[in-house]
């Protein structure tokens, strides 16, 4: 035997035995496996898919709820009926209303209406249910004026009308327009003048306000804008109806500057804003600064001249991530009469309302020649990307002059809530806030910062 052959033979025998032993394993490896594109289930369905439309049996009886479970659930179902009905109503409302809120009204290129008219509804405890209408002619191009006309009449006889015309847009170097407004509110609330009014002192008077303003804005840089404004306005205050108690019951009218008289004034001024924010509607980082100065001169012989200015600073600081934000704001407004001027009528004094509202107190509860508010909010996303929760602390004060603003007299508000950033850039805030006069629970639309 050739040595080589002999060696081959010696190796060959164990190899053959090894291969023999491995043969079942190899066969096993080649055997179709589930999920390998070749394996077929050992079921008749693999041979015939059958026809569900042909006569034949069902695979099981329909299964109802077990009797014991029905007995257990029935009392709870009866108790839950009113809630079910309530939520069925919500669902119906969502089905009818949500498409108008969340879905675009107009598709680009599809028939563009010349103007749209839509109903409006407002409600506040002060003015009651207020139906109205809005006519909007949208500016589909920048050289077409954007016009809005609104009118409404409340069940407590508040009447409002407004007209707004705007030409140009934020993307142009300039824009300008007109704004006219009339408001007649027989249930305007009044708590007194000064920093120490109380919510229990609420009374009512009739306020009638009309104004026409023109404005022109110029974008200096992408961060800065200046605006010139001018116009005339008329404020009047009289005895309330539909509001109890009337102002005269809680206060001596003679002690309230300007009550019962008209004040007509011409106003002109300028404002400017500078913003460096990471994004427009809902920033989480950056700074915003605004300032405004306006000069008022009386037109109807009441001999009142004053300068009104206000300033605002906001800051947004991300807390480790974009979804957690520390937001700060300070606002201050002052109306300082000229030397020799008669006092400013009470209804033209800066008040704790809108951006200046003391959150744990009633709107307009405080008014005087100076008002200042500082607020800090910690916000964090709970329903991304549009619903945040926040905790807030706020201080606010009014005073007749800047030097009489004292830390000892500030009004504090603490609380928190949820804020929803709407599809049209507006905010809805629902919050619970506590202050010296107790809790204030409310929903604000379009306010906040």
């Amino acid at each position, binding site marked *: 035997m050739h040595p080589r052959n002999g060696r081959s033979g010696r190796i060959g025998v164990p190899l053959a035995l090894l291969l023999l032993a491995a043969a079942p394993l190899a066969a096993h490896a080649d055997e179709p496996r*589930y*999920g390998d594109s070749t394996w077929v289930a050992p079921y*008749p369905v693999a041979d015939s898919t059958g026809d569900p439309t042909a006569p*034949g*049996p069902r*695979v099981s009886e329909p299964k109802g709820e077990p009797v014991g479970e029905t007995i257990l659930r029935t009392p709870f179902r009866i108790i839950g009926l009113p809630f079910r009905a309530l939520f069925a109503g919500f669902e119906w409302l969502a*089905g009818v209303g949500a498409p108008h809120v969340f879905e675009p009204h107009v*598709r680009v290129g599809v028939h563009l209406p010349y103007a749209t008219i839509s109903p409006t509804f407002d409600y506040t405890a002060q003015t009651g249910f207020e139906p109205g209408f809005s006519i909007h002619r949208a500016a589909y191009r920048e050289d077409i004026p954007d016009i809005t006309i609104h009118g409404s009449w409340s069940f407590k006889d508040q009447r409002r009308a407004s007209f707004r015309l705007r030409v140009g847009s934020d993307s142009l170097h300039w824009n300008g327009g007109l704004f006219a407004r009339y408001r007649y509110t027989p249930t305007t609330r009044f708590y007194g003048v000064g920093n120490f009014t109380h919510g229990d002192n609420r009374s009512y008077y009739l306020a009638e306000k009309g104004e026409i303003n023109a404005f022109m804005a110029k974008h200096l840089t992408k961060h800065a804008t200046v605006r010139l404004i001018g116009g005339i306005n008329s404020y009047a205050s009289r005895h309330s109806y539909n509001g109890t108690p009337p102002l005269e019951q809680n206060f001596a009218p003679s002690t309230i500057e300007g009550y019962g008289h008209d004040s007509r004034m011409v106003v002109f001024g300028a404002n400017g804003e500078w913003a460096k924010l990471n994004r427009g509607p809902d920033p989480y980082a950056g700074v915003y600064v605004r300032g405004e100065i306006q000069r008022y001169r009386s037109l109807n012989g009441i001999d009142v001249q004053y300068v009104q200015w206000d300033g605002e600073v906001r800051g947004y600081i991300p807390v480790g991530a974009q979804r957690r934000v520390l937001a700060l704001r300070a606002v201050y407004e002052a109306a300082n009469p000229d030397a020799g001027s008669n006092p400013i009528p009470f209804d033209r004094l800066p008040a704790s309302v809108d951006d200046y509202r003391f959150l744990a107190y009633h709107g307009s509860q405080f008014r005087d020649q100076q008002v200042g508010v500082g607020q800090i909010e910690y916000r964090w996303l709970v329903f991304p990307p549009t619903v945040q929760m926040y905790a807030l602390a706020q201080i606010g004060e009014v005073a007749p002059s800047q030097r009489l603003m004292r830390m000892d007299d500030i009004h504090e508000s603490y609380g928190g809530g949820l804020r929803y950033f709407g599809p049209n850039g507006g905010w809805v805030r629902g919050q619970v806030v506590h202050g010296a006069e107790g809790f204030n629970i409310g929903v604000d639309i379009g306010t906040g910062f």
Partner: protein
Amino acid sequence: MRARTASLVLAALAVFHASAAFATAKPAAVDSSSWVDHDGRPVSKPQKHEKALWAHEFHEGITAPLGHAFDIPDKILWAVGAGYKHRASNVNRYDEVSNSTWFTNRNHVRPVSLGDIRTGPAGDIEPTPPYVITHGKVGGNNPGFQIKDAAGKKWVVKLDPPACPQLISGAGAVASRLISAAGYNQARIVSFRIKPEDLTIDPDLTAGKKPGEKPFYQSYLDYLLAHSFRYPDGSSSAEASLFIKGDVLGPINMRGDRDDDPNDIYKHRNRRELRGLFVLMSWLNSWDTKDPQNLDAFIGSDSVGHVSHTIVDVDAALGAAGGEPKPPIRGFEYTIDWGWAMKRVLTLGFITEPWRKTNEETGIPSAGHIESEIYDPHAFRTLQPQPAFRERTLGDCYWGAKVVCSFSDAQIRAAVEGAHYDDPKATEFLTKMLIERRDKVGRYWFSRVTPVDYFQVDGGTLRFRDLAVDRRLADARHYKVEVKSAKSATRTIDLADTKLALSQLGKATGDVKLVFRVASGESEPTFLTLRKTGDSWNILEVRHADM
């Protein structure tokens, strides 16, 4: 006269009886061994149901979760160990879904060929130019329109976003091929190029003469095309979805049933194939699964036929969303996710959600945003909670995983190739991603339910498959089998292979229940009931986890 009256009455009764029998054509017989659930028997045409999308979303997103949160009986049942979830209704004795108007057993019992998967449902057809736009697209976020092509076929067309060629069309094409091969009725979806010169608008549509529709102008079409992905030749990247057969009756209700369809006897939330769909959609990242994405259609004449149930809109899948790559949160949270919201409230927003840890950027415009590393098959979330998904049990999820894991690598590649991506990187990436996600699905669910299945009595041997081993997700292993019968004590057999000599059952007679567990695992058991008749054994029932 009396005889005539009597004969008229009899004739009327006969007609009434016939029509009543026709209207309630419920087969009386029930056979749990049947592989066909005969739910397509002739019935009268049911009513059309339209669903107000926002009302539906409010119900599923707010009303139903709040209802469940305050459902005290659920808590009581849970506390006493009874559980409030019930086994799926339409399961046969093999723990499978029988063929029906909803589902046809396909890939997990008889592999679908690579060619058929690549072609997709409804055969090898594509829109044939020129096209006439017959309607605007109704509902949904993606802009689009309906067309009739030169062959007379109707398609719904959606356009891919400007920076992402074949993003939604590719996702729709891939998902539809896999869903169809899995066994569901599925609309045909293709990714194609549409040229502006091939499109004309039905003059009646422009003139506003179509009832209930806004006029559709050329300027709108120009706008849509300008805001789609454009190829150098001016054509747009688009998805076409073929109209399903029959007269559309409206979206499928995943909660209840159709009262006016006598064939529809199982609550939809209790249907195994709808519960198990969770696993399939999780695999495909089809995060926008909801009632309005599915349609019922009446097949037959104007008055007599049956209802067919089809999944139609699956392009919000893989890495795609409506008009953009998928936002990171989608697939991880509901729009209103109360659980995550509470965690965020309590931690003041300092909790980091899984989707914030993912890096779904693929760098491939056609693939969008998808990954497999953080992907958790169980934690997948659709846009709103789905009633059938909520009711899913371990057994339903095991079944869904079985369907998902029936797809081989080659089949997955064939489905992705069916989308005809221009970018080969998209084909490679999505194939790899789907394979990795499939394996995660298998590992997850097969470790929770003992994945032994496809039992077969072969002479004196009971054979079965271990799907985890077959899929190479686990090494060959031992099993512990408890043998329970009425006339003998319970004992345990240790099995080293996927076969059991029936002689090991001893002298057991009648029904014998075998409880299978993986020897080294803690997964829920699989139950097999055998019946001995004479000398032969027959499979009476298979159950995975749910008893």
